[in-house]
């Protein structure tokens, strides 16, 4: 056991840090205030900068570094879990974001895609030129994805005709592609008739309509309708009807450290509490405030440390056959971390509103859409109204890709072996 990084790992870390230190200076004004509000996809100049930044990250080889060496010509060098984790750590510390879904198609295509599809997509993904929304959820199919109804029926010429309706399609109005899950064999038993496709969102028959959520003009979600959309046969990923099994074996995603971005926010809020006086005394000297914050801070340290433990376990078991979602042994760790993140976030949001009091309800999104009366919104870091926005955001952040309750169910049955 060892808490230190090797000289080589420190070198990687420094390289990521130095690069990002310079990059964040180039961002358009207000970008990082906006970023925290998840609004970078709203303003053209912010979205464009994100895309350009992503390409520069791609040029460094960091998008594809975790891919197997088999894909060396696209930058695949089987980078160690620690290296990819260090990259994610530095990204989070710099509050930087890659363009939406830059690597969403990477794992599926490099693991299951045809050679043709790999040659078409992998160079572009590695270069940071692809953006992609998830085309999974439907009205009756969220965590229970096997209920998805969208169909892709093979035509006599080999192409597929897609009809259906996907929801919660984050950033679909910006991204170029979708990773679509659809039924290709309507007569098959549940789960055995699905296939995945890389679908160009400009294809005729696709309608993308904004689906507003309570974040206002924050995180942008959509509904996507497919009406007789023709998808070329070559865009099928993997073996027809085998998507369900294949999905659980996607590789190439790299490791990440949960909690770093949360810690950046937490530290900003602690500073706010030190600088904000109530009844003549800094909030941070109030024992109730201290207790609330310390409890959250303690849990955050635990989350980050579980994360590192999980990455180092992954490092140690490299090259061994692993099964399950996202890399085997990490099924438990990643579900625990996801659950902890999703529960920490709303607890922090609620604690922050409790600590700040009545003015925590004042909206103050400063850049994209200035609200009336925003001058009364408490400023955390350099973000007026952050608390209010964060509170509204938590209702979204803790549900995407499965609620904590769903994760508990998965952990109970798959992790602890309880009956279903």
């Amino acid at each position, binding site marked *: 056991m060892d808490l230190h990084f090797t000289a080589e790992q420190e070198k990687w870390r420094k390289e990521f840090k130095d690069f990002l230190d310079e990059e964040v200076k180039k961002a358009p004004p207000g970008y990082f205030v906006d970023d925290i509000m998840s609004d970078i996809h709203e303003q053209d100049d912010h979205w464009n900068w994100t895309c350009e930044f992503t390409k520069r990250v791609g040029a460094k080889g960091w998008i594809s570094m975790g891919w197997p060496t088999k894909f060396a010509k696209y930058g695949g060098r089987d980078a160690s879990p620690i290296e990819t984790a260090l990259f994610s750590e530095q990204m989070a510390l710099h509050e930087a974001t890659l363009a939406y879904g830059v690597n969403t198609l990477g794992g599926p295509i490099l693991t299951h895609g045809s050679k043709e599809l790999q040659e078409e997509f992998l160079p572009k993904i590695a270069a940071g030129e692809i953006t992609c929304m998830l085309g999974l959820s439907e009205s009756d199919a969220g965590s229970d994805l096997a209920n998805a109804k969208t169909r892709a029926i093979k035509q006599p010429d080999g192409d597929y005709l897609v009809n259906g309706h996907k929801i919660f399609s984050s950033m679909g109005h910006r991204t170029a592609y979708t990773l679509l899950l659809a039924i290709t064999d309507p007569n098959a038993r549940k789960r055995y008739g699905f296939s995945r496709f890389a679908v160009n969102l400009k294809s005729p028959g696709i309608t993308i309509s904004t689906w507003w959520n309570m974040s206002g003009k924050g995180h942008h979600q959509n509904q996507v309708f497919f009406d007789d959309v023709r998808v070329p046969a070559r865009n099928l990923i993997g073996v027809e009807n085998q998507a369900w099994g294949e999905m659980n074996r996607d590789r190439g995603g790299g490791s990440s450290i949960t909690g770093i971005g949360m810690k950046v926010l937490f530290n900003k809020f602690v500073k706010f509490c030190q600088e904000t006086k109530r009844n003549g005394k800094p909030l941070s000297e109030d024992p109730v405030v201290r207790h609330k914050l310390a409890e959250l801070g*303690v*849990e955050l340290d635990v989350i980050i440390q*579980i994360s590192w433990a999980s990455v*180092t376990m992954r490092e140690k078991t490299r090259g061994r056959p692993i099964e399950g979602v996202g890399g085997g042994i990490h099924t438990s760790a990643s579900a*625990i971390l996801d659950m902890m993140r999703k529960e920490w976030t709303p607890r922090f949001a609620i604690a922050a509103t409790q600590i700040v009091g009545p003015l925590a309800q004042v909206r103050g999104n400063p850049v994209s859409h200035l609200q009336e009366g925003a001058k009364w919104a408490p400023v955390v870091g350099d973000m007026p109204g952050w608390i209010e926005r964060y509170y509204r955001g938590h209702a979204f952040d803790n549900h995407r890709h499965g609620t904590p309750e769903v994760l508990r169910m998965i952990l109970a049955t798959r992790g602890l072996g309880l009956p279903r």
Partner: protein
Amino acid sequence: MDLTLNEEQQMLQKMAHDFLEDKCPPLVVRRLEESELGYSPDMWREIADLGWVGLIFPEQYGGSELSLVDLTILYEEMGRAILPSPYTPTVLAGLTILACGSEEQKKEFLPKIINGESIFTLALLEPSASYDAAGIAVTAKASGDDYIINGTKLLVPNAHIADWLLCVTRTRGGKTPEGGITLFLVKPKNPGITVEPISTTALDKQFEVTFANVKVPKENMLGKLNGGWAPLARVLQQAAVLQSAEIVGMSQKVLEIAIDWAKSRVVYEQQIGVYQGIQHKLVNMFRNIEGARVMAWTAALVLGEGLPGTREVAVTKAWASQTAQLAGYEGHQVFAGQGYMQEHDMQLYSRRLKAAELNLGQADYHFEKFAQAIEM
């Protein structure tokens, strides 16, 4: 960065696990709980012979010179078996002697601690119930070649069997509470010492130790006059980490027996493990245990490197104390009424989990330590 067990550590874990599974099943724990001594001298000797007591002491005194992390592995197993033994206070006293004793004292005491011959205990806590230096009011006053100790110590473990008490005293007021603390080694049989049992939740052997004009020769001073707090505080940090590792073991065992129960107990024609009300409790325990284990390793590594570790220790014990609460409470919820009965193992664990949760600082205490550590 590596937070996984190496081969030697896995072997240590298995060795401790197998030994305790064999020698310390719940039946033995029950018998010892009711015995006067509260531990088994035979088992204690075996444990010492296995090298457990000397695990982290230097080779020159007969120890194995392993790390604090290695010791957390042993503690997890001792927790899992809820081993009744004088291990903790003896080793903590030994670590204090190692930290600030004279070479003479080290040579005199450490080999006997390591081979299991001498049992030590810490006379630390007082009616102030504080683990901070400010809580120490028992006085030691110089009188010729002796010191005279007066006052009351509480929750002193194993005072009935200890060969030595490591007594934490106040030798002066001064500017800071930390600057007036001096440590003494005292024989419990000294005239003026009264030892009275205190009955606790865990029914472990805890005592009130009263000092009435107890004369201690000054060569029994451990470390410098008024310089006792710094070395002791360091040992208390280690103790908090070890206590956390013990909680991990206890909670892990509760989780395992609760999972077994959830699979076998049928209510309303279903195994109760099917119900999410039960599933979620067990997953919460699992989550807390995983975090507590990783944090105990982390804090042990930090302390092992000689770093301050204030933040890591606070996080570790705060989280572990919450884990102890959760495993104790939710464990009982899974077993319902049965776990409350004396013949059930759940109550053996939950009573000890409560002690472990509170000892060396409950969660709230460590939340404030954390707040101070991040300079809030």
